[in-house]
């Protein structure tokens, strides 16, 4: 049995959802055109992940085994809708920038994956920690990818101009750059974590 501290750290480094488990690739590539967007997407996913993990571990004993996946999806989709409406109301510019990827949190494999693999088997407190760890791991990964792409493509970081914009190839903010940056970051992560 892992202790609680390990449950939390597990998602942040050792089983980082983006770099190690390779789950949720679509938002990792699609929303990381800048550090801010990546961070925003990470936090939105974190919120859904924590809420759905907690609720699923609370109601797990009443869900018949056969319909558990549809039941999980309904719980997740409800929270995604709540987050979507909140973002539309309070951070409209971020809501616009992330676009279709906010409703698509529903089909982010991390969330259903953690519901099935962790929250449906553990108590509320540990599920909360697991959601938090995985969410933080996802958020820092997305922020990092976003920051690298923003610096390389736009010569800025968190919207702050570094004054090198005219030298930077714009392709890094576009689709191919997303694949390249994530690919090379993954190589780096593999290399560093193997030691």
């Amino acid at each position: 049995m892992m202790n609680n501290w390990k449950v939390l750290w597990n998602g942040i480094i050792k089983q980082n959802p983006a770099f190690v488990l390779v789950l949720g690739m679509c938002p990792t590539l699609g929303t990381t055109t800048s550090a801010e967007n990546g961070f925003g997407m990470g936090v939105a996913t974190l919120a859904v992940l924590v809420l759905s993990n907690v609720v699923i571990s609370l109601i797990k004993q009443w869900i018949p085994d056969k319909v558990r996946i549809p039941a999980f999806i309904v719980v997740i989709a409800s929270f995604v809708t709540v987050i979507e409406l909140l973002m539309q109301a309070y951070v409209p510019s971020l809501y616009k920038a992330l676009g279709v990827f906010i409703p698509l949190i529903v089909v982010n494999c991390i969330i259903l994956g953690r519901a099935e693999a962790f929250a449906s088997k553990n108590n509320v407190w540990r599920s909360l920690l697991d959601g938090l760890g995985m969410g933080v791991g996802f958020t820092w990964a997305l922020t990092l990818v976003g920051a690298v792409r923003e610096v390389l493509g736009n010569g800025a970081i968190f919207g702050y101009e570094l004054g090198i914009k005219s030298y930077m190839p714009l392709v890094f903010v576009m689709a191919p750059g997303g694949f390249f940056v994530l690919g090379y970051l993954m190589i780096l992560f593999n290399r560093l974590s193997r030691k």
Partner: protein
Amino acid sequence: METSFFAIVFGSIFVNNVVLTQFLGVCPFLGVSSKIKTSLGMGAAVTFVMTLVSVIAWPVYMYVLVPLGIEYMQTIVFILLIASVVQMVEIVLKKVSPALYRALGIFLPLITTNCAVLGVAILMISKGFDFGHSVAYSAATAVGFTLALVLMSGIRERLELEGIPKAVQGVSMALITAGMLALAFMGFVGLV
């Protein structure tokens, strides 16, 4: 909406390729693209389900959600719809055509969590397409997905024979290959 069918079809297959420019459906794109045969199977299953979902989702949105004023329920309704369609296709296929079921069967459960399917359903509504354009858009997007998948698996079959450093093997190599493919697809920008 005065966009021509040709612009929608050509645009969604090449110019705005769903995987390589919009990053939808990247998970199956990386996961099942190691053999050409399996990627063709996956592509066929996705094409089938995506078209079917748009045929059902469009009327449900326009004639149920809009009159009731509950458009914000779109995400929940669509994901449940996709899950039931996938389930239904699986059951029907098993009864009607066991041969086709054997070919597509293993891919079907994966489609529920393929974000391209939900993404296309949401996008066709937000783009304001009418019924015919929505169906054309979904089918063409699915063909674009299949194209990307088959191209990718062709490259990966070749890559298997190459010596690749250990840290680069697997997903990272696939991502870099996908990046090159995406670069090539950028050549289509501006055609439609």
